[in-house]
């Protein structure tokens, strides 16, 4: 029975992973098809430019087609040809800035953007796009680059404890501890993320990167679930081919984590990892491997927490790419293995997540709104039956989650963010099953 159940869960997992893999492969395949070729579809247009450069419709079509097909340098030559014919074209300067940006030539991108802004005939819509790209380019040109967000707000949860129903029975007929049974609650939360990059400004393109993620939530009633988290990752990043903007980079890093629960220390972790970054066409890939030694501390509410002490190894792949029309995708696939003090706390887990951020404009000349549908699944397969729950059953749990987020620009770098998320944990152990609806809203500052 257990084997069949695991197979069923694996089939469910595969059902989520397969579309993700198809999305990645189709994007990569499309990129491969876009590779410029002398004998490709551009040739008639190119021949037309060579033989009759003054035929504007052909020249414009050649420039546009080259840009869309990813033949960036040919597109640059073609748009610079058009600028020779009329240097007062802000749209062409913007297009050239985008193309140079795609080559990693941020100084040229900035030059074209600034020259476009100096022209009198820039539409509000184009001005907005130029400002956005200029901000991005300026960041890339600083030796010390900071990006991140700060967010605060309130959240309602139908199941703040993430626990089972109060009638749930454990082994020997005992009921679950009522302090951890499903109950609704509100909380105030604050979170921030900071990414820092220091460019050593040498010809090896080596950088030092650090990221910090912080989170704190204070419950209105159920204070045993007040939680605080801090994660820090830092390490150097090396380019394997510095002359190539799309070269693979590699980053070894250290990681440190800490958590408070019920306003008392709960866990701490120290470890290291290795991650790569590669671009294939328009798809970015970031595989990683990370091992963290975690220590848990017993407390009044959590007297058995130290049993979770052990090593967590995670192997994953983060990927992202554009789809078109302001729509893009991001995904995460991960396998984790926890080797804890007790075998029944040890687990293997498989995770797949997909986000589809969609930038769209509501007002002409305004900033984009962002709608983010998301979905994911995690499957935990524990190492042994928990004798206090059911000595005959090894737990396996599958969590399904769906969400919908919306970020509305308010002013400058401030947005109003809201997120509705539903998660459903289905387990062969009754006390591990639960479901929760969370609704979150709060102002966000992105920089």
């Amino acid at each position: 029975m257990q084997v069949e159940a695991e197979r069923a869960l694996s089939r469910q997992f595969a059902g989520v992973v397969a579309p993700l893999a198809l999305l990645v492969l189709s994007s990569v395949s499309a990129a491969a098809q876009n590779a410029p070729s002398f004998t490709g579809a551009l040739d008639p247009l190119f021949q037309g430019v060579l033989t009759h450069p003054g035929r504007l419709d052909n020249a414009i079509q050649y420039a546009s087609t080259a840009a869309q097909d990813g033949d960036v340098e040919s597109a640059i030559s073609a748009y610079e040809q058009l600028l020779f014919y009329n240097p007062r074209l802000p749209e062409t300067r913007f297009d050239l800035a985008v193309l140079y940006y795609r080559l990693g030539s941020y100084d040229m991108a900035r030059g074209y953007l600034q020259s476009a802004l100096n022209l009198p005939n820039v539409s509000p819509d184009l001005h907005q796009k130029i400002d956005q790209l200029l901000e991005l380019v300026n960041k890339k040109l600083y030796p010390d680059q900071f990006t991140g967000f700060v967010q605060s707000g309130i959240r309602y949860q139908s199941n703040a404890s993430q626990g089972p129903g109060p009638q749930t029975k454990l082994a020997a007929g005992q009921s679950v501890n009522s302090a951890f049974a499903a109950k609704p609650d509100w909380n105030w939360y604050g979170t921030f993320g900071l990414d820092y990059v220091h460019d050593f400004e040498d010809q090896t393109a080596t950088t030092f990167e650090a990221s910090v993620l912080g989170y704190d939530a204070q419950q209105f009633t159920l204070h045993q679930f007040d939680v605080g988290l801090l994660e820090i990752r830092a390490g150097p990043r090396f380019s394997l081919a510095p002359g190539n903007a799309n070269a693979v980079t590699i980053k070894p890093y250290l990681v440190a984590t800490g958590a408070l629960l019920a306003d008392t220390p709960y866990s701490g972790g120290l470890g290291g990892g290795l991650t790569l970054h590669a671009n294939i066409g328009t798809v970015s890939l970031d595989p990683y491997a990370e091992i963290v030694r975690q220590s848990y501390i017993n407390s009044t509410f959590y007297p058995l927490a130290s049993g979770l002490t052990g090593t967590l190894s995670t192997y994953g792949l983060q990927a992202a790419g554009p789809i078109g029309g302001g729509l893009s995708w991001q995904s995460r696939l991960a396998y984790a293995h926890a080797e804890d003090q007790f075998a029944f706390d040890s687990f293997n887990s498989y995770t797949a997540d997909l986000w589809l951020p969609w930038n769209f404009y509501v007002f002409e000349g305004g900033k984009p709104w962002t709608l983010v549908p998301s979905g994911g699944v995690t499957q935990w397969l524990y190492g042994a039956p928990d004798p206090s729950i059911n000595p005959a059953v090894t737990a396996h749990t599958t969590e399904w989650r769906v969400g919908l987020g919306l970020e509305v620009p308010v002013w400058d770098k401030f947005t109003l963010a809201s997120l509705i998320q539903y998660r459903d944990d289905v387990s062969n152990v009754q006390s591990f099953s639960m479901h929760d609806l969370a609704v979150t809203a709060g102002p966000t500052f992105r920089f």
Partner: protein
Amino acid sequence: MVPHRIIAVLLAAALTIGPTALAQQQVGTATAVNPESDSTPPGGSTVALTVGAKVVHKERIHTTPTGSVQLLFLDKSSLSIGPNTSILIDEFVYDPNTNSGHMVAKLTEGAMRYVGGQLSHQGAVTISTADATIGIRGGTATIIQGPNGTEVINHYGTITISNGTGTITITRPGFTVTITGWNIPPGQPARVTAAEISRYLKYLSSQFGQDGGIAGLKNIQYAACGTTTTQACPLPQWLSTSIGEDNGFQVIIQATQHASQPPPPPNTGGGYTGH
């Protein structure tokens, strides 16, 4: 396919006919010309350059203080040539079937921007000046030859600069090297300034009031990004603000599962992993 066959046949014919015919073989086209700009083909007399004029081996292009030119080559590379510039297209050999060949040009004075094509992707493009020999792989670069020497600005790819003292390589976009003499070691790569970029963007194109020899281009639509038929304009990658929330939920799920049950009995028999 026909035009490529024609090019290949012409190249093959040129090779068999001999050096004189090869020298007359078209290797590119003048796609934009602002007066006064002129050209001198090998063995020919200097004539005013016009849009659509064929560019051949050993052709020298010269621009006056108001002149500027863009050349487009068979391998899809281009040269933007600024005012007061003199450049010789010394060699250009390209086989479109194998995308192989090489290009050699000599910049005597002035400024030019090379935007790469098939030959530079093979690392087969060389620009020489009085002070250095510059190899381009990738690649896109601005090269200036003035009274103070040669300046090379890398925009993309790998630029190898050699002279009588050795070789230095620029691998990152936005870095520049100045070479003040053939027997003087090149300086170390340094960040190019925004002012320099701005100056050469303006210098290596038409000035306001010029039309590159083709009048009537009033407006064009976005093409690189920002329309429903093209990819999204570059924006910072969307960064989820709910990562901390998700991690917090996992901490609570794990803690609740652990705390909602009574303590395990002693001697659980094999459950202890020995950490």
